[in-house]
């Protein structure tokens, strides 16, 4: 089980909005593929997968905000 978390984006950035999921629950995902795109007011930031697996759960829907370190999805 692997938790996809919103990484540190730099001092002063505490949260970002999920703009776009590149995958959905049940999808096979692969190491280095883009999972989710988050946005701040000036930047869009893609979070990539660290290993192969299947998306078990998506915890933050498109349009919702997440805090740094918050779990965005679970991969099995």
């Amino acid at each position, binding site marked *: 089980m692997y938790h996809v978390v919103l990484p*540190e984006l*730099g*001092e002063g950035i505490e949260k970002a909005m999920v703009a776009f999921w590149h995958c959905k629950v049940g999808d096979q995902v692969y190491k280095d593929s883009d999972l989710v795109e988050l*946005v*701040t*007011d000036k930047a*869009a*930031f*893609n979070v990539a997968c660290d290993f192969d697996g299947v998306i078990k759960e998506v915890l933050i829907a498109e349009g919702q905000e997440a805090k740094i370190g918050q779990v965005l999805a679970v991969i099995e």
Partner: protein
Amino acid sequence: MSDLTAAQSLTTGSFVDLGLIDYSQAYRLQKETVAQVIAGAPERVFLCEHPVVLTLGRMADRGYILASKDELAAHGIEILSIDRGGEVTLHAPGQLVVYPILDLRKRGKNLKQYLYDLEEVAIQFLQHYKIFSVRKPGKTGVWVGAQKIVSVGVGVRKWVTYHGLGININTDLTLFSLINPCGLNVTMASIESIIGQAVMSQKVKQDFCEVFMRSLRLKGN
């Protein structure tokens, strides 16, 4: 205009002058270069101009496009949704568009610092023309008084950046009446509208590259 594009190519070292290039073509080039830089290739900074086009960032509200579809079609203006931060932006000849493809893994993985540095490049570049510009808390871009002169919106993949800056040099500012720029309901400015005289396009690019190299520790050769 656009004598920016008529200028001799400035392609040197990390900087690549694409001249006047279709937005979609430049976007593909950025994505290809991002993949190369992720794999360890040298960083690149693309300089270019685009034919008139409207781009919508991920946060964009189509309500910020004030012109009707018919008006846009009459001008031959395309609308593209893209993966960058920010709202609706207009690109047109006379606007120096800068796409830095930089590896933030080498720069402390600090997105906020990168955005600050990018704005700082624009602020220092404008000082070459004796234009005093500032950031505005809570608003994107770089400003001269109440007027916006530089738009900022970036994308990041695996800590490698794309998208970047749009600096109005001698853009036809009447085009901005088609939109509510960046959702901010502001008026736009250009270097020429502020200083009241024409600027040499080749000098514009050279000045920009010098400031960029100094501020973002990029090698010129």
